[in-house]
């Protein structure tokens, strides 16, 4: 539903986090964090290891409750509109969610079907694009870490979700893979999408406007 309504030109506030605080163990990761993600924006969350980047992403997806504060999707708290939010949001975490017993196509077919856009035919063109051609029949456990990552990231070409939340999407990718992914990011934000990601890699900001949040390691 959200894909069509969000493609108009004026930027809409997709996701708004207000006064978020997160405490893991006895350490405050961040407190009173605010961010507003509009359509057409890419947000990069930076910070050293352990600063709470992944925790912030998981709070934004709703996987992890925040100690304080609220996350709103299109003006509604994500706890109230969980199903709509999950329909409109794609999260690829540190663990990619690729079943190692299944082939690339079987993995992609599953995710396409549960998002309500079942594949009509095996996505050979997409596999060629992400460099998995010739590996269609091999269960994912027989592929390299980078190739498994590519299976998960191939979902970005199949989804219609306007909001992407990506935890270290460039991990294990080669230079060509990173360029391909950045091109896809540019395409996505140009058509009214938005991306929140963490990355240790510098992102070539020329292709799209980049907002940055820096988290500090707090003792």
């Amino acid at each position: 539903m959200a894909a069509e309504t969000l493609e108009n030109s004026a930027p809409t506030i997709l996701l708004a986090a207000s006064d978020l605080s997160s405490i893991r163990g006895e350490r405050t990761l961040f407190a009173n964090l605010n961010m507003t993600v509009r359509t057409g924006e890419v947000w990069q969350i930076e910070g050293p290891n352990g600063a709470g980047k992944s925790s912030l992403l998981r709070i934004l997806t709703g996987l992890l409750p925040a100690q304080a504060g609220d996350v709103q999707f299109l003006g509604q708290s994500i706890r109230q509109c969980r199903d709509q939010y999950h329909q409109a949001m794609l999260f690829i975490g540190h663990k990619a969610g690729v079943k190692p017993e299944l082939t690339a196509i079987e993995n992609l077919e599953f995710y396409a079907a549960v998002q309500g856009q079942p594949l009509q035919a095996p996505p050979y063109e997409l596999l060629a694009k992400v460099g998995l051609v010739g590996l269609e029949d091999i269960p994912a456990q027989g592929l390299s870490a980078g190739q498994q990552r590519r299976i998960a990231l191939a979902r970005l070409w199949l989804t219609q979700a306007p909001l992407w939340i990506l935890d270290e999407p460039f991990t294990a990718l080669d230079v060509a893979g990173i360029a391909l992914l950045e091109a896809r990011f540019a395409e996505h934000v140009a058509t009214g999408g938005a991306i929140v990601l963490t990355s240790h890699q510098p992102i070539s900001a020329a292709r799209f406007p980049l907002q940055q949040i820096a988290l500090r390691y707090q003792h």
Partner: protein
Amino acid sequence: MAGAMGIFVQIVKRDLRVASRQRSDLLNPLIFLLIVVSLFPLGVGPGPDILARIAPGVIWVSALLSAMLGLERMFRDDFRDGALEQMMLLPVSLEVSVLAKIAVHWVMTAVPILVIAPLLALLLNLPMSAWGVLWLTLLLGTPVISAAGAIGVALTVSLNKGGALLSLLLLPLLIPLLIFATAAVEAAVSGLSATGPLALMGAFLVITITLAPFAVKAGLRVSVN
């Protein structure tokens, strides 16, 4: 949107496919069950009377233990590869996905037990008049093991060595099941009506199937964060 039913079917399809590619994981509990049941006549002596008397208990205890063997797999693999996180982010209530996982676990572990149940009864010289009731107790009881087991697995999935804790958590919950199941079969063996214990097992089944998904959901939200 794919709809709750559509997502349920997709999860079942995917998990059945995954399970069909890990055959040894499926066969091991079954082989364990067969070995235990076939060792009993050797251990306690082949007197047909003794065997027939202990048959309900032996079959049910070994079925319970063999079901516990494969229980952890329900969420552990998904937790490790991130599929569990993705499942929690599906545009459907988590209870639906949980029910799909329970259904798949039941099909993969309990249906084989139901198929070989007559063989187990034969091995232990259970009177043929009680075979039907034994089969009914397994039919009613195994979904309870899958559903109650899912709660335990959801709570322990993020622990590295959750196996022992899982058994400690679950076995006390399943003891009533064991008592009523063996009571039903023993009643049938001695020619009495087994309706009472069977009805109670049916009640267990209804309660666990309806309430377990909510408990599993809460457990998963605690474990996955």
